[in-house]
C-alpha cells in the first residue's frame, strides 16, 4: 500500500533510527512510503505556543502538499507531528472561517482529504502480515508500551484508540512475540519539550516512568515518539540511580524490525545512548522459528498481561 | 439562514410529505426550539410514510415544485409498526421511475427524522433547499419520449409505480 510519508525534522536529526527502522520494516509489511516533496516543519512545540494561525497553517500546508501529490493518508511517525497534523485538520473542520483563512494563507485549496496516521496506527493495521512474517519472534521479551501524552489525546483529535486505556501498542508488541507488561505510567508525560528549559521537571517525570516500567518487570520500553525517546534514552544516564541497570528504549518499529529478522544496524539500533546490544543478542538468540503460528490472537493487553508472578501483583491494574 | 438573503437568487419551492408521528412532530419541535431555517418548504401532513403514494411526488413536480422531501419515522420506530418499511421498499422501486422521468435525484430527499430530532429536521430542510437551489428551477419532465419497447419475450416495464409487489 502506498502511503504518504512525512518524516518531520526529528527523523532527519535525533531520531534517525526511527526513520531507518521504519523504512526497513515497510517493504515486508507491504508499505510503500512516499516522502512528501517539499515538506516543511509541522510547527510543533513553538508554533502553537506563539501563533494559533501558524500552528494550523504549517501542518495544513503539509497536508495540502500530500493531497496535491495524490495521497489519501499521511504517515507522521513523530507523535508531535501527528498530533499537529491531526489537530490542524480538526481545527479547520470545526471552523469554517478558519478554513477560509488557511486557504488564503496557503494560497492553495485545502480540502482536508488526507488523513494523518501515526506509527502505532499504521503498524497495527498490518498485524496479520507482521504475525505471518515475524521469523524471529521476540518470545520472552517483556516490553513496557509507552504511549506518552500526544499519541492518543485529545480524544476528539486522535480518535484511533481509547484516550485513557489504549491497547493498540500492546497489540503490536504481542504480534512481535514479545509480552507487553501491565504498568500504569504509560500515558504520563515525559516532560517533552521542557527537556532543555526545565530539565529538573523532565528528570522527575521521566524517572517516574522509568521506575514504573522497571518495577513492572520490563526488559525494554517501546515508544512511538522521538521526544519521549530522547527524554528516556538520551537522558537516561541522569535518570538512573547508582547501581541501577539501564533500560533500553526502543521505537516500536525497531521491535517490529527485530521480529521481522532485520539486523540491528539496518534498524539503527547502534544509535541509542542506552546500549541495546544485550537485548539484540537476546533477540538473535531466540529461535528463528517458523513465522508465528496463526493461533488465537492475544489482543487485549489485560489478557496478555496477567501478572507473571505474585511478586508483580502490585502492577496488575492499568 | 434566511431564504431571502439575495433577492436576485432563485428561491425554490419544496413540498414535504411527512408522517404525523415522527417528522411532523420533529418539525414541531424545531419550531418550539426556535430553530431558524429556510422558508422554502411546505409540509403536507400524512398519518404515515406508508400512506405516501409515489404519485404524490410526481404530482408535486407536475404542479410546479422544484423539490420534494419525504420523511418519516426511523426504521423500527414506526408508530404503525411497519408503515415506513413499506414506504422504504416502495421508494426503492420508485427510484427507477424517477430515472425514467428524467428527474435529477437531488430534487428528491428521503430522510428519517424522529419526533426528537428538531435539529435534524432543520438540516434536512436547509440541505434540501440548498441542493435544489443549486439545481435551479424545475422545468418539466425532459426527454419524455418513450424508450424503445422491449423485444418480445423480454419483461415489459411496469408503468404503475407502487402498484403491487409490496412483499
Amino acid at each position: 500500500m502506498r502511503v504518504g510519508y512525512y518524516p518531520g525534522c526529528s527523523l532527519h536529526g535525533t531520531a534517525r533510527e526511527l526513520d531507518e527502522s521504519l523504512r526497513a520494516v515497510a517493504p515486508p509489511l507491504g508499505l510503500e512510503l512516499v516522502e512528501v516533496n517539499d515538506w516543511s516543519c509541522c510547527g510543533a512545540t513553538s508554533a502553537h505556543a506563539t501563533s494559533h494561525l501558524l500552528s494550523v497553517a504549517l501542518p495544513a500546508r503539509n497536508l495540502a502538499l500530500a493531497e496535491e501529490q495524490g495521497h489519501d493518508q499521511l504517515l507522521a511517525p513523530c507523535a508531535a507531528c501527528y498530533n499537529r497534523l491531526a489537530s490542524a485538520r480538526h481545527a479547520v473542520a470545526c471552523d469554517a472561517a478558519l478554513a477560509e483563512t488557511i486557504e488564503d494563507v496557503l494560497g492553495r485549496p485545502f480540502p482536508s482529504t488526507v488523513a494523518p496516521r501515526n506509527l502505532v496506527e499504521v503498524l497495527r493495521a498490518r498485524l496479520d502480515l507482521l504475525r505471518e512474517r515475524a521469523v524471529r519472534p521476540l518470545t520472552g521479551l517483556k516490553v513496557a508500551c509507552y504511549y506518552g501524552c500526544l499519541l492518543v489525546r485529545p480524544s476528539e483529535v486522535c480518535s484511533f484508540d481509547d484516550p485513557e486505556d489504549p491497547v493498540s501498542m500492546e497489540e503490536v508488541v504481542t504480534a512481535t512475540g514479545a509480552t507487553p507488561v501491565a504498568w500504569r505510567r504509560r500515558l504520563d508525560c515525559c516532560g517533552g519539550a521542557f527537556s532543555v528549559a526545565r530539565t529538573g521537571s523532565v528528570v522527575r517525570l521521566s524517572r517516574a516512568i522509568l521506575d514504573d516500567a522497571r518495577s513492572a518487570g520490563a526488559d525494554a520500553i517501546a515508544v512511538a515518539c522521538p521526544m519521549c525517546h530522547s527524554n528516556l534514552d538520551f537522558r537516561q544516564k541522569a535518570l538512573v540511580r547508582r547501581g541501577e541497570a539501564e533500560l533500553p528504549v526502543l521505537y516500536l518499529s525497531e521491535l517490529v524490525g527485530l521480529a521481522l529478522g532485520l539486523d540491528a544496524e539496518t534498524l539503527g539500533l547502534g544509535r541509542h545512548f542506552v546500549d541495546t546490544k544485550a537485548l539484540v543478542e537476546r533477540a538473535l538468540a531466540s529461535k528463528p522459528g517458523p513465522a508465528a503460528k496463526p493461533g488465537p490472537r492475544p489482543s487485549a493487553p489485560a489478557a496478555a498481561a496477567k501478572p507473571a508472578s505474585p511478586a508483580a501483583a502490585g502492577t496488575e491494574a492499568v | 439562514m434566511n431564504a431571502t438573503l439575495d433577492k436576485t437568487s432563485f428561491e425554490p419551492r419544496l413540498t414535504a410529505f411527512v408522517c404525523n408521528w415522527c417528522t411532523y412532530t420533529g418539525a414541531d419541535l424545531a419550531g418550539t426550539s426556535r430553530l431558524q431555517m429556510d422558508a422554502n418548504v411546505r409540509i403536507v401532513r400524512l398519518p404515515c410514510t406508508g400512506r405516501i403514494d409515489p404519485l404524490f411526488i410526481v404530482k408535486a413536480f407536475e404542479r410546479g415544485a422544484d423539490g420534494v422531501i419525504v420523511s418519516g419515522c426511523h426504521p423500527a420506530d414506526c408508530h404503525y409498526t411497519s408503515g415506513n418499511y413499506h414506504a422504504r421498499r416502495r421508494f426503492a422501486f420508485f427510484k427507477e421511475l424517477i430515472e425514467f422521468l428524467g428527474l435529477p435525484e437531488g430534487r428528491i430527499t428521503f430522510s428519517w427524522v424522529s419526533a426528537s430530532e428538531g435539529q435534524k429536521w432543520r438540516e434536512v430542510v436547509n440541505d434540501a433547499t440548498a441542493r435544489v437551489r443549486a439545481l435551479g428551477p424545475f422545468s418539466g419532465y425532459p426527454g419524455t419520449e418513450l424508450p424503445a419497447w422491449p423485444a418480445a419475450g423480454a419483461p415489459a416495464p411496469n408503468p404503475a409505480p407502487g402498484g403491487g409487489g409490496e412483499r
Partner: protein
Amino acid sequence: MARIGVFVCHCGENIGRTVDCARVAGEIGKLPGVVHSVDYKYMCSDPGQALIKQAIAEKGLTGVVVSACSPHMHERTFRRAAGGAGLNPFLCEMANIREHCSWIHEDREAATDKAIDLARVIVEKVKRNVPLETIRIPVEKRALVIGGGIAGIQAALDLADGGAEVVLVEKEPSIGGHMSQLSETFPTLDCSQCILTPRMVEVYQHPRIRLMAYCEVDAVEGYIGNFKVTIRQKARSVDETKCNGCGACQKACVVKNVPSEFDERLGKRTAIYVPFPQAVPNIPVIDREHCAYFKGRARGMKKDACGKCKEACARGAIDFAQEDRFVTEKVGAIVVATGYELYSIGKDQPAAGLKGYGEYGYGTVPDVIDGLQFERLASASGPTAGKLLRPSDGKVPKKIVFLQCVGSRDPAKGIDYCSKVCCMYVAKHTMLYRHKVHDGEATVFYMDVRAAGKGYDEFTRRAVEEDGAVYVRGRVSRVYRDGDVVKVLGFDTLNGTPVEIDADMVVLATAMRPRKGIEKLAQTLSVSYDRHGFINEAHPKLRPVETNTAGVFVAGACQAPRDIPDSVAMASAAAAKVLGLFSNEMLEREPTVARVDAALCAGCFHCERVCPYGAVEHKEVRDRKGNLLKVVADVNPGVCQGCGTCQATCPSKSVELMGFTDEQIYAEVNALAL
C-alpha cells in the same frame, strides 16, 4: 358549494411578530369557497372559540380552518368548538403557521407568504372533508404492569386498590427490583427492605392482582382498551401449586458456588434458589445453566447426574420436565416499569457508541466496586451480613474513595445525561460507611453536587458536616492496585493540585441505563424511545406518564434516571391515568380508518398483506340469488389504526383512508402550485 371559514390566530406575539396575520386572512378570504376570513389575537381563548361558533351559526359554514399552532396542540380544542356549534368536528382542520412558520423564520415577508400557502393548502383539503363519526370501542378494564420493581409494585397496588384487575409481570423469579437490594434509602436512611417487603406481600395477597413472576411479555396486539398480550412463563422447574417454600431443596443442592445476582456477584447461591429470603413469591427456581441435572442432560448423560432437590422435596414440587408456557391476557391499558441497570464500566459495552473506563480497574481490582455492590456490602441481608468488609481479603476498609459521575455526563463515553441519583446515594454511602466504621475516611470525587429535592441538600450537607466526608472537586485519571492498597490518582480542580490517595476500597457511582432489551419491548409496544433506550413520554411537561401510543403508560427509571420518590410518584400518576381511562364504558377513537369500495375492489388483497394490524378481512359479494360474485377486502374499523399503507398499495385505489383520501391530498398538492 363549500362555505369555508378561516380563522388566523396571532397567538399573542408568537405568530403575529413574524407573520402578517391580517394579510393572511385577507389573501385567504379571496379564495373561492371561503366566505369568512378573520384574524384574532388568541383563537384558543373563549372569545376566540366563540368567534368560530358564531361564524358557523351565522354564515352556515361547511368547513373551518384555524391557522394557528400545531394540530398536535389544539386540533381537539377547535374540533370540539366546531362540534359545539353543530358542525361535524371532522370538518375542522388546522394550518400550522406557528411551529412550522413564525417560530422558524425571521423574514416577515417570506413567513407571511408561507403562512398563506399553508392556510390555502388546508382550505383546499377541508373543502373535500366529509363528516365522520367517532368510533366507539369497549374498554377491557384490566391493566398489565410490566416490571415488578418499586414503580411496578406501586402502580399495581394503586390500580388494584382503585378497583381494576391487574396482571403484574416480572422477569426475575421475585418482585422487588433494585430497591430490594438497597441497604438504606436517602434522605431518611429508612431501611429499604423494611418499607418495601410489606408492599411486596400486599401485591402477593391482593385479590385483584395476578402476579406473574419469572415471566416476560412476548407479544402485544391490539390498541387502547383492547390489548391482547402474550406472556411467556419461563420454566421454573418447580410446580408453583405444590411448593410451600420450605427451602429444603436449596439445602440439598450440591451446586453452591453460583455468583448471586441479587448480591451483585459478591455472594454465592445454589443452583435451585430464591433470590433473597423475603422473595415474593417464595418459590425457588432452577438455574438450568448451573444445575448439575441439566448440565448432565446437556452432556447427553442418560442417567440423572443429580436429583438431590427432588429427593429433598416432600411435596414433589420439583419438575425437571417443565417447559416455557405461553399465556394470553386481555387488558385495556399497559404500564411499562422495567427500571434500570448500571452502565458497565469495563471495555465490553452492550451498545455501540458507549465506551468504558478501562483505567479504573473495575473487574480486575477486586476492591473496586460499583454502587449496587456497596449497597449489598452495607446491607444486613448481604454477603457480609452488614459488616463492611472489602471483597479482596475481608478486611475492614479504613479509607474509601467514592467516584461520582462514572459514565454520567461524559459525552466521550456516550452518556451525556445526569443519572440524578448518584450524588444522593454517594452521600448516603459515606454516611453508612461512617456509621459502620467510625474511624473510616470517606473521600468523594465529584463534578457538581446535584441535590435538588426535598431534604436532599440538607442530606448531602450532613454527610460532610456530621459524618466527615471529604469532597474533592475533580476527576480521577487512574485507579490501580499497589500492593495492599488501591491507588487513586486524581486532580483537585479547586486547589489546582494532583491528588494521590492510598485507598482500601473504591466505589464507582456508575450511570443508570435502561434495561437491556428495552428496545425490543418498546417495539413490541410501539412506543418510542430515545437514543439511550429510555422510553419517551408523550410530552415532557404536560404528559409525563403517557407514551405516544394510546393506552401505554410509563413509570420509573425506564423513562429516565429516577430515584424512589420519583418512581413512586410516576407510578401513582400512571395508575391514576389508567383508572381515568377505565372510568369510561366506551372509548372514542378518531375515525381515521380505511374504507373499501367493494364495487372497485378486485380482491387482490395486497392491502391485507401490508396491513400491520390484520384489519383487512375478506367479504363475499353475492347477487340477489345468493351466487358468489367475488371476494373483496373489508376493513374492520375497530382494528384499523389509520396508517394508510393499504391505500398507497392498492392498485385500483379502491381503499381510502378517511381524512386522508387521495382527493384531499392531491388537492393539497395542487394548492401549493398556485
